[in-house]
């Protein structure tokens, strides 16, 4: 039987892997991807809580994470361009 604890532990493990990536990786894009991992883990906890505690409601919060991910992705593509472009054109 799979309980909420299993899902929450899995989410914690994924979150920690993402944290390790953000702290140890020195590549901006990889760091962003690790942030995505952390957001994904938090999403998993939201849906777990929604499933086990409020089964008749939708996990609305998850959609805000998707919106935020989109915005951060577009901003990240602009921000990533900064450190690299001068070297490429000089």
């Amino acid at each position, binding site marked *: *039987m*799979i*309980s909420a*604890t299993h899902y929450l*532990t*899995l989410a*914690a*493990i*994924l979150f*920690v*892997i*993402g*944290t*390790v*990536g953000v*702290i*140890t*990786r*020195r*590549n901006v*894009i*990889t760091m962003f991807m*690790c942030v*995505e*991992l952390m957001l*994904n883990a938090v*999403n*998993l906890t939201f*849906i777990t809580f*929604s*499933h*086990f505690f409020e*089964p*008749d409601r*939708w996990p*609305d919060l*998850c*959609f*805000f994470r*998707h*919106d*935020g*991910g*989109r*915005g951060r*992705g*577009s*901003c990240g*593509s*602009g921000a*990533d*361009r*900064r*450190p*690299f*472009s*001068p*070297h*490429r*054109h000089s």
Partner: protein
Amino acid sequence: MTLIVCYGLATTAVTAALLVVLMSRAVYSALALIVCFGATAGLFFQLGAQFIAAVQVIVYAGAIMVLFLFVIMLLDPESEVFLPSRLKKVSGFALAFAVLFTLVLLQAADRWAAVQVLTGPIAGTERASWPGGEIETLAHSLFRDYLLPFEVTSILILVAVLGAVVLTRQNHEEE
């Protein structure tokens, strides 16, 4: 059966997440991240959030990852080589595992405190069915109860787009 699928998805997700962190090239990390998102989408599906699983696949494995791959292909981040200092690496792992230990400990404490709500059975059937369909219920709560936060996120995206434009233009002026 459900148990096997769930454990398989969880193992896939954790392995792919580890690959994201450990792969030396950003392209491989992005591909592993797609696998991780796919496995997580399967878990969402199992938890009864079918629509969010679909959105996860469409938006994340589709749009966001294509964006990441574009950025990687266009900018070649491998040209920028940093070597993380040993101290930072060690402290990163130590901090992260401290966080993990705390989280697991908290959950164990919750269990020992006999919070039996947490250990309810999982079955897709026990979830109540929504009157008027899932998507309609979602639309009602998103556009009526949470209309203001939803609109605020659009401002967030606007700010992000403006930030991307500003950062890129500054760069061109410097050249």
